[in-house]
Structures are given as structure tokens and as C-alpha cells.
């Protein structure tokens, strides 16, 4: 871990349309291990929120328990955060989100927090199409309790002590597709050029957005034989359909975009530009997305990028028929029917 953060910033750091430099989006000093993938993801989140010109205090940072769930403390200091209980971030976020639809909800979870103890809540928050960005910092192990295998550890992957994992792994991306998630992506903490636009697109999506980010654990799962190490991931990653997030008003172009592209409009007028996996790859085709995912897995390839997107779908606010005014802003006069309504109720109970 680091012990301090230098105060010096480049005097000509670029500003977003709010006039803020990325400094306004920073958090506390990370207490994670040096080289932890999670810190790269935190940095990407800062970049994404800054790039989307969202005021830091209009973000709610939600998490459960584990190394991943500590990380919201290390970005967006001006935003409220809620480090809740293990595996229960989705329910806390659901309550918070229903209470105030106007904030941006970034949930940060881990593979233990999501794929084991939090599996039920993960499934149900997807079913509700809650308007949030759900990031899984996936390192295939329990870091904070010293490296036990998690449910996303690949079958055959070796632990630091040399033990081979005998169990089938849970693929959160495939599961999310099955459960009807409306935005599903995978990325790698070491590929910020892909991760930042993906995060921007996820944050702009008006519904549930999952980004499963392979984020190596440098201390317990970064050795030969592990399928979640930096080396293994770099060798096996296939950056697929990603790639660029295009805000409604401002185009961002990354050098990385190559080949033919396809533009998919998001609900709010923004769009995501994709480089096609192949000529017939349609990121709005859920069944095909699952097939392509499985094909890559069978070839020991880690497919990253935007796997699936359903731009038009009712999110939980619409399903609940909620008003435009956030529920937490309704005043007493809108909430309390008063004594006169009560006398009618009394009359009906005689």
C-alpha cells in the first residue's frame, strides 16, 4: 500500500465542462497492495465520471465486503459511499436508488461478494433492471482472507500453494445474460483504453449494467498456473466488441478503434461504437452473445468488450411507476393524507 499521495498536480491538467480537473474526482490513499488491479479500476472510474461531466457529489458509491468493496474509498471523495455487508450491496443500492433516482449509482463488488455470498442479490438486482453500474473486480480469490479460491476461479487453475481448483467456475457475464441483464461487458484492469469507455457507456445506460473486470490479485493469485494472473490474462485476452463511447454532444475517438464499426444508440442519445467481432456479430443479440462467449471460453480465450446491450428497456423506476421527483424529495404535504382522509377511513371501518 501507499502511505501518502503527493499534492502536486500538473497546472494545465485538462478540465471537463464543469471546469473540474480529475483532482476533484480523486479519493483517499489506497490501502490495497501495490500493483492491485483494483486500483487501476478506481483510476478508470475517476476518469469515466470526470469524462462524463458528472458532479462528483451526485454519485453514490456502493459496495459490500472484501478488498474490492474497500476501493470506493479510493475514488470520488466528494461522493457519499456505503460499504455495507458481505454480498448485500445490491439490496442496499436498490433501496437507495428507489429513494433517489437522480444520483449515479456505482456498485463495486468482488467475485466472492457477488458469485458466492451475494449470488442471490446479484441475480435479483439484474431481474429488476435497476439503473446502476455494477462492477465486479474479479480476481478469482478471496484476497482479504489470504487467497482462498472463489467461485469464479477457473477449473484447473492453481492456487498460490499449488492446489488445483476442482470446481467449475461461475461465469458472471454468461449468468447476467441468462438473467436478462440489459448491458453486459467484460474487461481487464490492465486495459484502461477499453475499460474507461466501457465504464462511460455503462454509466450512461439507463438500466442495469454489469462490467466484470478481471483484476489480478498481485499477492495471492498472480503466479504461474493461475488463470487470473496478469501474464495469463494478457496472453489470453481477446478484446472484442468494444471500444468507444460517444457522448451525444462530444465525440471521443480512441486510436484503438480498428476495423469496421457499429454504432448502437443508448437511451439518452449517447451511443456506443463497437468494433465488430465478426461481420455477423450483433451485440443486441443475446443468444448469439452467449454462444460467442462460450466459444471463446472453449478456446481458453477471455473475451472482453461490450458483449450485450439492450438500449431500450424499462428500468426499475419505470416498472414501479415512480414520479420524476425523487421519493426522498417528496414533501410532507405530498406524503401525509391528513385527518380528513382518516375520517373517511374510519367511516369504512364501522
Amino acid at each position, binding site marked *: 500500500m501507499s502511505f501518502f499521495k503527493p499534492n502536486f498536480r500538473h497546472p494545465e491538467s485538462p478540465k471537463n465542462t464543469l471546469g473540474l480537473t480529475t483532482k476533484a474526482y480523486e479519493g483517499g490513499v489506497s490501502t490495497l497492495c501495490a500493483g492491485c488491479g483494483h486500483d487501476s479500476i478506481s483510476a478508470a472510474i475517476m476518469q469515466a465520471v470526470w469524462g462524463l461531466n458528472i458532479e462528483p457529489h451526485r454519485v453514490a458509491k456502493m459496495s459490500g465486503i472484501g478488498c474490492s468493496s474497500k476501493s470506493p474509498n479510493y475514488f470520488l471523495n466528494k461522493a457519499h459511499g456505503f460499504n455495507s455487508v458481505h454480498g448485500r450491496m445490491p439490496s442496499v443500492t436498490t433501496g437507495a436508488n428507489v429513494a433517489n433516482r437522480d444520483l449515479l449509482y456505482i456498485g463495486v463488488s468482488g467475485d466472492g461478494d457477488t458469485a458466492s455470498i451475494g449470488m442471490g442479490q446479484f441475480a435479483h438486482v439484474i431481474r429488476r433492471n435497476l439503473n446502476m453500474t455494477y462492477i465486479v473486480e474479479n480476481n478469482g480469490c478471496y484476497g482479504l482472507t489470504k487467497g482462498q479460491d472463489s467461485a469464479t476461479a477457473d477449473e484447473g487453475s492453481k492456487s498460490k500453494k499449488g492446489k488445483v481448483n476442482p470446481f467449475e467456475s461461475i461465469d458472471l457475464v454468461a449468468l447476467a445474460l441468462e438473467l436478462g441483464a440489459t448491458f453486459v461487458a467484460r474487461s481487464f484492469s490492465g486495459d484502461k483504453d477499453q475499460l474507461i469507455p466501457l465504464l462511460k457507456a455503462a454509466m450512461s445506460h439507463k438500466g442495469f449494467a454489469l462490467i466484470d473486470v478481471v483484476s489480478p490479485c498481485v499477492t495471492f493469485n498472480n503466479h504461474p498456473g493461475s488463470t487470473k494472473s496478469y501474464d495469463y490474462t494478457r496472453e489470453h485476452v481477446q478484446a472484442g466488441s468494444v471500444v468507444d463511447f460517444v457522448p451525444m454532444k462530444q465525440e471521443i475517438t480512441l486510436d484503438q478503434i480498428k476495423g469496421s464499426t457499429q454504432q448502437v444508440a443508448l437511451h439518452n442519445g449517447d451511443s456506443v461504437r463497437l468494433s465488430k467481432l465478426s461481420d455477423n456479430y450483433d451485440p443486441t443479440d443475446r443468444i448469439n452473445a452467449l454462444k460467442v462467449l462460450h466459444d471463446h471460453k472453449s478456446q481458453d480465450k477471455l473475451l472482453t468488450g461490450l458483449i450485450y446491450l439492450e438500449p431500450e428497456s424499462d428500468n426499475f423506476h419505470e416498472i414501479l411507476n415512480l414520479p420524476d421527483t425523487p421519493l426522498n424529495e417528496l414533501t410532507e404535504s405530498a*406524503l401525509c393524507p391528513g385527518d380528513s382522509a382518516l375520517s373517511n377511513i374510519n367511516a369504512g371501518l364501522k
Partner: protein
Amino acid sequence: MSPINTAPTLDKKVNDFVVKFANVNGSGSASANSMFAKAIFRMGIPVSPRNIFPSNIQGAPTWYEVRVSEQGYLGRRGGQVELMVSVNPQSMADDVNSVCPGGYFFYDNTYPLDFQLIRDDIHYIGLPLTEIVNATFDDPRRRQLFKNIIYVGSLAYLIGIEFSALESIVNDTFKAKPKLIEPNIFALQLGFDEAQKTFNQPLPLQLERRKKNDGKIMLEGNAACGLGAVYGGATVCAWYPITPSTSVAEGFEKYATKLRKDPDTGKNNFAIIQAEDELSAIGMVVGANWNGARSFTATSGPGVSLMQEFLGLAYFAEVPAVLIDVQRAGPSTGMPTRTQQSDLLISAYASHGDTKQVCLFPATPKECFELTADAFDIAERLQTPVIMLTDLDLGMNEHICDDLEWDDTRRYDRGKVLCAEDLDNIGRFGRYLDVDGDGITNRTIPGTHAEKGAFFTRGTSRDEYAVYTEKGEAYERNMERLLVKWATAPKHLPKPVLTNRSQDKKIGVIHYGTSLEATHEALDMLSADGHQVNDIRIVAFPFNDEVSAFIEEHEQVFVVEQNRDAQMKTLLVNELEIAPKSLLSILQFNGDPISADMIYRNIKEKLNASAEAISA
């Protein structure tokens, strides 16, 4: 009219008896039985109906016990009943045995009665209900439903229910389906006429119109909780189905749909979320309250067990939350459709580590309404969970109570929430910094201010400024401050209710929740025996000083509870440092609502025993 006529004859009883119905569940008897009780209510006579039902959907025995009481005793009386209405052959043996000597056993005599069921000290009065419905209705479903209505009509003749009272209920019930009014009234009349023709004279158990229900309503506690949540400003209800609490969420939905839809946009100024389990339900409640919306959940014992972890988080991170626990008989799945007061300890000390939780104990539907609304103020004022402990008896039965009232000048107490302007006017914001000594610290809602007031809410230890720390002193300071807050709490909680019958303060009784009516009746019975007993009803935990004063002042103190382990006594002993022997427990835990008779007998026995001990 009865096979054997040697049974004693009851003296005429006016407005003072118990009628019990034995039905098959899922047969549509509930609405007929409730019509019976409601008609008595409309005649101005105090009445208290109670469902005794199985954890089953169709085919198992279910009972409905209706007590009529001129004196206004609304608790269970206890003992055998004067009139049993038997419409269920499965339970007939037990039902015959629950009739008092000289009492009446009303049954369907389409089929002959098993001679083994015949007692020579009760009266059997039969009507061929099955035969009548088969001859009158073609549709099998109608036959079943109207069989129930027919016996209500027969009872109208036998015990003197005003026919107009029944008619008014039919009219009100089927306002939206007027086609059903005429056949229901026809069935009532048919039952009435058949009884008149067969029996020729009414029973000595008679109802006479009174004016004792003016200014009163009949309501289930759970519906009252739902309505209280609407009035208390709850916008987010997250819940998971569990008997006997399900109708709290349903009540909230019913009243919110009626009273909270935006008239212009048709949008819901409320959200109801059926969660995937109780853990998620309470998680949503914590999340919504953290974000400044009033939110609650309703559950029962098994749900409270599952919610422990979040209750600990909300206690330690100081997030308001409201939980309505409609208690049922535990442990484990226990008797899911029977009542108990056995979640006290798991609620009062919910979660691991050193925790104490605020609890409320309503005794009537009116209190369910008022305390639910109050619970949101208390939770936000104290920034902590408030657990309201009601029970199946209160929640799922209709009880007579005073008309509901709301003071329009009352304002929600949102507690110490800082707005953007407040933040501008202070120095460094300390989320867990006690600035005025009451143990309650300032809170901010996410999104309030661009630069100030944000903090990281967490279940881990932190200092006054919400900065993570593992320093023992900072942890201790925080835990000590939570105790200061705990000491502040009673100021914001409803006071106990004292009833003084005697100045010499020899005997005192402590009770809470639904033991109220039966306890007061038992104390009247003791009073008639020459024992003037004072009582105090506990309405909230942490305890008000009046509770300890009451215990100190009285020579002998009884604690009436509906659980095996004397949980309230344990709480009193633990929190008030009282010698355990100074409190004598009166406990009922068989799943039935506690009865006056049981309380009376037990106190009397103990008083006699101590009198003997003194004279010896």
C-alpha cells in the same frame, strides 16, 4: 331438538358469551364468520373475534372464536364456549369437548352424528345445512359458500342478531358487485326461516342492541400498521412474504394506492418491493433510509433472525430503519399461524457485538397506526433501527378500537439532517461527532453539497469524522457515545401506561402488547376478590424510568408474557439490574392468545401460595 335432553339449561345470558365456529379452511367461511362478528359490532355490542387457523391453504380445520362482552372485555375469556357452530366433521370430537355444560352444539345434521360424540350435558341443535344447499343451489361452489351464509342466518334467529345489521353488511361488502347482494340476503333469510321452523324458540344466549361502539372502529392491526406507514411518510416498503406479517405490506399497498397516487400524473408517490428474501428486504430499507427516504419492512420471527446482520450495521453505522415484527410461535418454523411474544430478546439485542435496539409494543390497532407513524420519527431522530413488536393476534384479527385520529399540525421529525446551507455554516463536518452531548450526531443525505458532507458509511470502526480507524480509544469513544444516545432515547419514546387501582401498592402487574385486554379483565376479577392490583403496560424499550419506579414501589410484581422464557423479565432484570426473584412470571406460550382466566388463576394461585407461606 337434541338426541338426549338431560343437559342442564343455561340461565339467560345477554351480551356475554362465546361462540366458536369450526370450519374447514379454504371453504369460504372467513367472510361469513366476519359478517357475524361485524353485525354484533354494528349492534353496538363489544365483540372480539379471533381466527385460529392452520398453516395450510385448503382442507385443514380452522376455528373462529367470537367473544361478546357487555362489559367491554375484548381479550380472550378462556374456558369452554357457550355455543359451538360445527361445520367440520374432522374436528368434531374436539369441538364437542369445548362446549361448556348446558351449552349448545350446532351442527349439520344432514348426516347422523357419531354416537361417541354425544355428551349428556350439552344440547345438540341440528340443521340439515348440506341438504338445504343441495336443494337450493345447482352450482357446487355456491353450495359451499352459501352454506356458510345460511348458518349465519340461522344464528340470527337463535341468538338475536338484528337482520338489518346483517343486511347492511351484505350491502357494504358487495357494493362493487351488486349482483351478489340479493342471493346473499336470500341465503341469510333461508337460514333464519329454517332455524325458526326447526327450533321454534331462540337460545337463552341473546344479543341486545347497545350503544357501546360509538366512536369506535373494527380493524386488523396489520392494516393499521400499513396505514400508519402511509401517514408516517414511508415511501419505500421492502418485504418478503411471511405469515403473519404479509398483510402489513398489503395494507400499505391498499392505502398508498388510495391515498398516495399523484392525481395529476398517476405516478406512485411510493414504492413497494417484494424482495427475494428478508436479507434483501432489510438491505433495501437500510439503503433507502440512508438516502433520506422513510422506509420500512414487515416480517416475523424467522425474518428477524435473517435480518440480524443488517440490524447490526444500521445500529453501528447509525442508519434509521423501521421493522415491524408480527410475532408468531417460534423457535424455527414453530407454529407459523399461532401467536406469541417470543422475539423480544432477539430484537432488543439484535446482531453480533454490543448492540441494543429500540423496540415498541403496540396493544391495539389504533396503537399500531400511531406507533408505526411515530416509529419513522423515532428512527430518524435517533438514527437507529426501530423494531415494532406486534403479534399474530393483534395483526391478523379484527379488534375494536377508538377511531383513528391525526393531528394536522404535527410535523415529521427528520432529526439532525444537515442541508447544504447548514454545511456551509459549519467548519469540518463530523458525521460521528457529538456536538451537543445527547449522543446523536449530524447526518447528511447523499448528493446534498458539492464540497462538504460526504462520508463513507461503513460497518467498520471509524473516528468522529467517519475516517477508518482501528485505534482502540476511538472505537471506545464511539461505543460510549452510542450509550449516551441510548440514554437519550426514552425522551423520544412513548411512555408506559399506568393504571392505579390501589394506593397501598402491594401488588403490581407488568404487561405489554396484546396481553392488555386479558390482563385488565383478570385484574377486575382479582379486584372482585379483594385484591386491588396496579398495572403498568410497557410500550417501549429502552425502558422509561417509570418502569423501574413501579417495580421498586410494589411489594410483589408479576410480569405477564406470551412466551416460555420470560423474555421481558429477562430484559428488565438485565437492563434495570433487578433481582430476578423480585419478578414473578405469568407465562402462556401454547400459541393461543392469552386469556383473562389464565392470568387470573395464575396470579391468584401465587397470591394464595405466598399468603400460606406467610401464615406458616
